[in-house]
Every structure is written in C-alpha cells, then in structure tokens.
C-alpha cells in the first residue's frame, strides 16, 4: 500500500483528461488562480511556453529581460497582492539567474513558485548542454524544492508547491521539470493540497503562553512593541492596530514591518535598527517589556546582542518555532499566526495609555528632529537631499502610493520619510539587501495592484544592475514611476568608507551614463531635476503622467544617513551625526 504523506482537497466530479506535462503545468497554475507570471523562455522549458501561447488569453506571461528580473517582479507582485508570485525559466543559466531573487524571497519570507525546465531525464548527470543542478543549487535558499522526472507527478507536486509557498511562514519553492516530463502525457486531475504530514504550517496556539504574555504586558510600566512583516503576512493589520490602541503601547517597526501601521498613527514611534529612529533604539535598552510581533531579531535590528534589551522581559509572537530564542531569548514565547495569537491576547490585555513613557519617545524625537530630520528636510542647504524628494512624493501621492525601494542610502531615506496610510505599501529588499531589486519589483508591484500608484525609488548604482528591465516596461506599458536619486556614488558604501575606512573611496565613485536619454531610448517619458526649484513641478508631472515615467534627481553627493548604530555597537549607542 502506498503511504499518503499529504492530503488534497476532493474534487467534485471526475474531470480527468489526457494532457501533456507542459499543458498540465499551465492548467495547475490556472487552478491555483494565477493570472500573471514572469519569465524567460529557452530550450528546456519550450514545451511549457508552447502551451502558454495557447493559453495566452487566460494567463499573462511577462517577458522580463533577465531571469533575475522575473523573480524580483514576482516578489513585487506577491508583496503587494498577498498572492503567490510565479517565475519561470529554462535550465542552466536561466535557472541560475533566478538564484538572487529566490535567496531574497527566502530571507524576506515572500511566497514564490519558480518553475524551471531541465534537460531530459536520460541526460541528467551527463553535463548536457544547459544542464545545471538547480535543485542542488537552490536547496539552501528554498523552503522546498523538487525535480519532476515523470509527467504524472506534475499536478501533485505543483499543488504542494503552492501550499508550501503560501502557508505558515511563506517562502520560495522551486519545481524543476525535465523536458521529457513536459512532453509525456498524463491523466490530469487537479486537487489543491491541504496538508503535508511532515509540515505544520501553523503551530497550535498555547493559551497558557498567551495568559503569561498578557500578564507580562499588563504589569509592564515601560512596554514597547517591535513589529515586523509577520503582521502583514498574517493579515493582522487591523487587529494589530486595535491591540496597539487598546494597550497604548508605543510601536516601532522593522524595515519589513513598515506600512502595517500607518506612519502617522500616534502610537507609531518609528523604525528600529541600524538607521532607525533615535527614540525606539535608545528606549529598547530602557523598556521593561519588549513585545516582538512577527519579527526575527535580525542583526540590523539588534546591533550588538550582548547589549540588546538585557533589562527587558521579552514577549515574542512568532509563527516559526526556529526563530524563538534564535537571536534573543524569549521569556514569553507565543507560537502561532499573529492573527490568532493577537486575537487571543486582545481579550486579556488591559487598556492603558502609558503617557509618561510616551513622553520619553517624544523628547527623543525632538532631539532627532533637531539634529537629523530638520537638516535632511532643510530647503536652504546647498544641494538637494534625498529626504526632500521623498517628502515631495508623499505630497503628490497623499501617502497612498506603493513605494518600491532598492538598497542603500536612498532606501533608508525612502523608509524613514515615506508616509504610508495603508498596508503592503513598502516593497524593499530587507534581509538580503539586493541591489537591483527595485526596478523589476516595481513592475510586479504595479501589476499586483494596478489601481495603486507605484513609485520606485532607486539609487544610481542599483538601477544599473537591472536597468535592462526598462525593456519590460516599454513592452508592457506598465505605468510605473521611476525616481533615481543620483549622487554619483555607491552612497552607503562610500558613507562607511568615510566613517570607518578613513575616506578611502575604493571603487565607489560612478561615472554614469545619461539616464534620461536611456529611458527615452525605451520610449519612456523622462525628465531630470538638477536644482531644488525644479523638484515640485517635476514630481507632480511624473505622478500626473498617464503611463510609465522616469525622473532622475541629482542629489547631494556626500550626504550621510543618520542616525546610525555603528557595527558592533549597542542600539542605545546610536549616533546622530
């Protein structure tokens, strides 16, 4: 007897029909509600592309200009829509080009299903043309992966792939399909996966742990919340807001938690971590109870762990058991989907306001405002600052836009200064710090939320890592707005060279091309701002434009991002200048 290791939903009637493996792939995607996929054709995936041609009225395939772009676009799509992003590529170089996006999705818990073609199964292991062991390569950076060598496996494997990608703590999954499995035929009968016996997506909520956590929260005099993407992934934003409002606890965010709570919410006290706000960083080391919600204590958040919140009792709401006690010891671990655990906790926590404690945050904000924020926004300094540009985007989009940022100084400016009023609005590469992420991710984000304004904010360095995706924008006419904050440097590295390497600017200065001409070459409307006086009109023209738009803004060359927790320092040793 065959042992059943997974459960599948029952289908009503017997709808089975004979199809090829390649057609089965498309039918599986349709069964999972996939409307848009990103990819690049090639030899080993051609049978599937042939079926895509036949199904083009049902499924929209976006041809990116590089497979890395396909994964990032799929990530952007997933991040704004909450659906699973799908990327497709051929074997060999097609598959290896997916790697950066897969690694990014793994560390930022983004649900992706990547489908790669593979050489015929009789050629496996023979170093055939475009053969690469993508299952081996992607093992450490996927939540799950599998190589299909028989057509009959396709429906069950793809059903499992979608279930694994989106359930529990989401993540990327890769399904590699040999060419002969794409050509062979099978009896197609699709059943969605509903469980896998060796995998527990949502840990059971332990009410005793909830009670203990509630007690700790209720007796706290100086509690502080740090929330991460778990709030968004769990769809718990409303519940979280109610929780914050009921308990009156100051709430700070990690870079991926941003936009789960409106930026201007009175209890939102800003960002924690290396370039986070002054108050929440300093007060991490003063609070008596630290309530971590759907976050994983990344080193960019904690700084030196030996001096991180040692005085505080830690309550940790988390879906992934492996994150409990991984970096910071949790006195009160609460396992589960935050949507369930917060709901249970809500009933037990007492209303409070913590007024005096709030005043501490306000005082420290005043200090930060005086030393950092007012300077960043100062319109009387000589050159344009990055924060001024973000501010102008806020004004023109009324805080409703999705802001997609790349990696570096501009990313910190975008996260620190963007005004978000709704969730799933901040799309950025957090854990992996992937330069080149933003342009393709913005394409996916706009397709995932076509009704929303999507503005990509990118540095001149990262932009050139995936600049070829302008071709995708031109071809699809996807109306994304692209803002390049051009300082002529790999700014964040330059900042470190200035501060920690005695101003030895090794390979950080960039001789850049004429970005406006390049955009125009792709028939994308483009403009350049070289002076503060042009900024207001230029941003307005960009937002008002119906269609894709490129705006280059020349900003101060050697601006530094502050506040800053230097590497190896404690979060409370954050410096302001």
């Amino acid at each position, binding site marked *: 007897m065959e*042992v*059943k*290791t997974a*459960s599948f939903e029952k289908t009503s009637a017997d709808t089975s029909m004979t199809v090829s493996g390649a057609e089965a792939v498309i039918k599986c995607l349709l069964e999972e509600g996939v409307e848009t996929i990103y990819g690049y054709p090639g030899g080993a995936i051609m049978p599937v592309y042939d079926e895509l041609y036949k199904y083009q009225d049902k499924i929209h395939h976006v041809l990116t200009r590089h497979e890395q772009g396909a994964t990032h676009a799929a990530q952007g799509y997933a991040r704004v829509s909450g659906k699973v992003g799908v990327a497709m590529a051929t074997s060999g170089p097609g598959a290896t080009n997916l790697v950066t996006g897969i690694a990014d999705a793994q560390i930022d818990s983004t649900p992706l299903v990547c489908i790669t073609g593979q050489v015929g199964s009789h050629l496996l292991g023979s170093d055939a043309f475009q053969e690469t062991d993508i*299952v*081996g390569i992607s*093992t*450490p950076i996927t*939540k*799950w*992966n*599998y*190589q299909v060598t028989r057509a009959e496996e396709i429906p069950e494997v793809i059903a499992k792939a979608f279930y*694994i990608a989106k359930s529990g703590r989401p993540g990327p999954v890769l399904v590699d399909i040999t060419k002969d499995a794409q050509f062979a035929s099978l009896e197609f009968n699709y059943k969605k996966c*509903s*469980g*896998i*016996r*060796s*995998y527990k997506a949502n840990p059971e909520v332990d009410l005793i742990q909830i009670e203990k956590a509630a007690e700790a929260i209720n007796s706290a005099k100086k509690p502080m919340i740090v929330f991460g993407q778990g709030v968004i992934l769990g769809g718990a934003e409303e519940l979280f807001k109610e929780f914050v409002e009921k308990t009156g606890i100051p709430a700070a965010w990690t870079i991926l938690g941003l936009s789960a709570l409106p930026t201007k919410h009175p209890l939102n006290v800003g960002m924690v971590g290396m370039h986070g706000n002054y108050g929440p960083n300093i007060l991490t080391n003063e609070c008596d109870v630290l309530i971590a919600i759907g976050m994983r204590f990344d080193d960019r958040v904690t700084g030196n762990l030996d001096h991180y919140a040692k005085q505080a009792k830690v309550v940790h709401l988390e879906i*992934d*058991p*492996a994150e*409990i*006690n*991984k970096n910071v010891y949790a006195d009160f671990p609460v396992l589960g989907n935050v949507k369930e655990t917060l709901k249970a906790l809500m009933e037990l926590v007492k209303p409070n306001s913590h007024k005096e404690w709030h005043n501490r945050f306000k005082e420290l904000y005043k200090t930060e405002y005086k030393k950092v924020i007012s300077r960043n926004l100062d319109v009387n300094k000589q050159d344009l600052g990055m924060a001024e540009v973000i501010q102008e985007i806020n004004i023109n989009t009324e805080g409703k836009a999705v802001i997609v940022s790349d990696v570096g100084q501009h990313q910190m400016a975008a996260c620190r200064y963007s005004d978000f009023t709704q969730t799933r609005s901040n799309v950025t590469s957090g854990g992996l710090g992937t330069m080149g992420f933003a342009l393709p991710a913005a394409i996916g984000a706009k397709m995932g939320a076509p009704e929303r304004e999507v503005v990509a904010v990118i540095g001149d360095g990262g932009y050139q890592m995936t600049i070829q995706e302008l071709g995708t924008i031109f071809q699809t006419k996807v109306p994304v707005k692209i803002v390049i904050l051009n300082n002529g440097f790999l700014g964040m590295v330059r900042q470190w060279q200035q501060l920690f390497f005695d101003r030895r600017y090794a390979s950080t200065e960039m001789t850049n091309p004429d970005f406006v001409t390049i955009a125009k070459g792709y028939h994308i409307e483009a403009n350049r701002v070289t002076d503060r006086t042009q900024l207001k009109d230029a941003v307005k023209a960009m937002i008002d434009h119906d269609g894709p738009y490129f705006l280059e803004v020349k900003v101060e060359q050697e601006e530094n991002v502050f506040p800053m927790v230097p590497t190896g320092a404690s979060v409370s040793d954050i410096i302001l200048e």
Partner: protein
Amino acid sequence: MEKKNFTVSIYTENNLGLLSRIAAIFLKRHINIESITASPSEVPEVMRFIIVVEVTEEQIKKIVGQIEKQIEVIKAFYHTAEEMIYQETALYKIKSSEFLDDLNVQAFIKATNARIVTVTPKFFVIEKTGKRNEVDELYETLKPYGLMQFVRSGTIAVTKNEMPITGILEKFNTTNSIS
C-alpha cells in the same frame, strides 16, 4: 557553554535531496559531523538519520529547530550520550605475519569481545562492535601491529525514552481524514 557530543535523531519522509538539505544546516554553521547514518526506521516509509556532533546545548537546540523546519522532516530530537543506547562497528585489517605470534593481542581481542571475521595467510580482519571509546581503544592496541586498513561505521543509537513518531503521523491522518 561546554561542548559535548549530541546525537540527533531525525525522522523524515523518504525524499531524494533531504540529506543535502540537512547536511547544509551543519555546513552553514561550520559544524563538523562526527558521524552520520541513514536507514529505514520502525515506521513504514519513514527514514531515520542519526547524526553525532560536538557542539554546545544552545547550538544543538537551534540546529534541531532548523532541521525540523525542513518540509519533509517529521520530527527531530537531540540527546546526550547518557540518554541513548548506542553502538558503532569497526573493521581492522592486519598483516598476519605481524600478528600470529603475539598472544597478548589475541587475549586482548577476546577480552574486548572483538571478533575475527576473516583469516587469510596474508591478513586478518577483526570486527568490533561497541561504544565509540571501545572502538578507539582497540584501534590504539592494534596500531603498533601496522593496520593495513581501518574503517568504522557511524553511530547507530536508540533512545531510552519513547519516540512519538507514530502518534504524530496518526494525528495527521485523523485530522486530514486519510486512511
């Protein structure tokens, strides 16, 4: 925290590629695997890995967490030597000429419950099953006689406590109505 030997028992689905997923967890943390074995377990279609590593208890807890996170891992446990009943087997190949006349060695083999597996005019093969240190002791004793070959198996072990795998699988079957 002090480093010591921990035995990790991992129950998994029988899946190609899982070994490299598990090995990668150790590799990523620069932890040397002292021994590893894989075999079918007491549950049909379920594999059992036994991995011995020398780490701190804090490290082993995190590693087991990462192992359990893998989709096809049903359950992973770690145990100290005291909590396990464990054995390993070693084979020692020795030149007959060096060995035949030495009564001390023959007596020692008898005393340690080692067994002579093969005798040829040219070499002897001795087998020893026991605890790791017993295998080591015999190795030290035989080394002066010129070991032609030496090979040892990974540690195999069972726990003193029950392993609740069947229960975990049954629970899944009932809640998902799989017969």
